[in-house]
């Protein structure tokens, strides 16, 4: 599709010209634009606009900070079964500073970061993966002797836009799970003076990152976001409502254990703890690894990784409801509820028996005489 090593994207060259030199046909380029427009929920009338914007784009400067993270998000973003234009764009624009992909190291790399921030002040796009540890003055993560908080604040100050990629940059992910020993927080907790777009997920789908960056390059602004700062084009709908197993849910067909007949039939994973009903993500539509598959498609319940605090709130991953603390893992809310209901029934039965015994000891059950007398006795004085 394109030659990976023909020539570098020089600063005065447009993207259209550059792609042409690398062997990308106009048809392929328009296909890419059409796909992205569909992903962003834009009509086909936007395709020429996007194509024009991308074609005439000069090489944008992107600084990619990797903080407290596992590099899984970078793996997700660069992993495709075949190189696509989107992948190429990401590769190209993230060249300035990216720990995993850049060639430079040590002082050279830090110098590249500083000079890029200085040259493109106010214009570069800041992409962040990883959380920011704040405990003990941030000593849990230092790069070149400086804490993650200092590095992020400095880089965000001159950024035109901030994109937080992955659950770590979103809210802290596993290192922010209780008890959060390093005091990890997300990018949005540090950068308050400009909007932060959160590409949620552990890891997120690379196409969402591409689409968000292309939206920024085409429109000159970030896409619309929800209350969590997640782009609504991707995170506007629940997994449950887009799921290929939804028909089985509605029909009442559920997997009860991972080796049963229902699991082999590909029925709904609701009973084995699927968090799809609480999770907003485009996984069923975009899927992973160039649309190969996705967790529920492969028979694993959703763990809700695009939601804040999912390590704490979505666990246990293989049960529908949280455990009841203090009763052990086998004691579910239903067992306790049923026990209390049985207890209440037994209690009222015992009370009824006690009342009956009490009444029987006091007197025989009274009988109302009929007919009513026409001269009633004087009413007894009211109590009190």
């Amino acid at each position, binding site marked *: 599709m394109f030659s990976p090593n023909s020539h570098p994207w020089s600063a005065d060259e447009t993207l259209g010209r550059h792609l042409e030199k690398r062997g990308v046909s106009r048809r392929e380029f328009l296909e890419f634009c059409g796909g992205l427009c569909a992903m962003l929920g834009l009509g086909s009338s936007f395709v020429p606009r996007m194509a024009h914007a991308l074609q005439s784009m000069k090489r944008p400067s992107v600084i990619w900070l990797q903080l407290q993270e596992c590099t899984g998000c970078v793996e997700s973003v660069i992993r495709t079964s075949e190189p696509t234009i989107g992948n190429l764009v990401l590769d190209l624009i993230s060249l300035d500073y990216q720990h995993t992909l850049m060639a430079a190291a040590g002082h050279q790399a830090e110098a590249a970061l500083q000079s890029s921030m200085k040259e493109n002040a106010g214009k570069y796009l800041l992409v962040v993966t990883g959380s920011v540890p704040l405990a003990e003055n941030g000593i849990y993560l230092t790069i070149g002797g400086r804490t993650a908080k200092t590095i992020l604040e400095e880089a965000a100050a001159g950024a035109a836009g901030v994109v937080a990629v992955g659950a770590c940059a979103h809210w802290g992910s596993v290192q922010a799970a209780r008890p959060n020993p390093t005091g990890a927080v997300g990018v949005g907790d540090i950068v308050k003076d400009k909007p932060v777009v959160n590409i949620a997920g552990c890891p997120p789908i690379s196409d969402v990152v591409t689409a968000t960056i292309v939206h920024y390059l085409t429109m000159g602004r970030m896409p619309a976001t929800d209350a969590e700062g997640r782009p609504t084009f991707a995170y506007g*709908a629940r997994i449950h*409502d887009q799921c290929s197993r939804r028909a089985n849910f*509605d029909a*009442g067909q559920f997997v009860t254990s991972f080796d049963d007949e229902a699991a082999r039939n590909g029925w709904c994973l609701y009973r084995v703890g699927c968090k799809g009903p609480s999770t907003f993500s485009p996984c069923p539509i975009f899927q992973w690894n160039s649309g190969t598959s996705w967790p529920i498609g492969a028979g694993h319940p959703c763990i809700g990784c695009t939601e804040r605090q999912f390590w*704490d709130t979505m666990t246990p991953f293989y049960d*529908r409801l949280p455990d009841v603390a203090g009763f052990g893992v086998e004691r579910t809310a239903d067992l306790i509820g*049923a026990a209390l209901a049985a207890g209440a029934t037994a209690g009222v039965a015992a009370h009824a028996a006690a009342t009956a015994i009490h009444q029987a000891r006091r007197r025989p059950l009274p009988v109302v005489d009929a007919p009513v*007398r026409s001269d009633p006795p004087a009413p*007894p004085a009211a109590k009190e």
Partner: protein
Amino acid sequence: MSSATAPVEHLPRTGNYRWVQLWGIPLRVMHWAAAISIVVLAVTGLYIGKPYFMTSGEASSHFLMGWMRLLHFIAAGILVMTAIVRIYWLFAGNRYERWTALIPWHPRDIRNFFRQARAYLLVRPEEAPRYLGHNPLQQLSYTGLYALALLQAITGFALYGQYDSTSFFFRLLNWIGPLLGGMPNVRFVHHVLTWAFIIYIPIHVYMSIRADVLDRNSTISSIVSGGRMVRADEAFEDD
């Protein structure tokens, strides 16, 4: 053995009776609509919480969970309507139905709260204060049920709103998830409160039957007919 201290039911079995109007038609309709919808909500809710039976064959020929959810949502809508009627009737009803009857605020009623609790706990019905409407314990218990229903409605509609992040209920209630620590916790609270309703049913039914049997003053029929026949010579705390 306690005939000397028992001023009330100890009475002659004869005499004049009078009709006391207690519950208006809106309140009675609301009671039975709420009762039916609570039973439907509990049964379908427990199925939705843990689908305990399943269909087989092609998914396209069944809609079990779909019907369960539809029934659940319809019953929830009916319960909300009964709540609206009840709130209106808190201001439009008589003194046994008004908002002033929600909690025992009168010193006499506060005193009777303890007398009533003692009578229940020690199984001494003859020592209980006599009320035409709700006794202080009943007032608190029904007010507690209203609070329970409110929590259940908030968590329920927060869960319902999840189907569409632009829906009215999503926008109205999307603060509840972060407040309780995530939607699974909202689901958990909703589930546990269901059991509170289920536990309430046998207690409520027992107390009603017990009062009807012991006091012989048509407590149960009052929620159908709207009032009670009581002896003309019997004195009540809230007469």
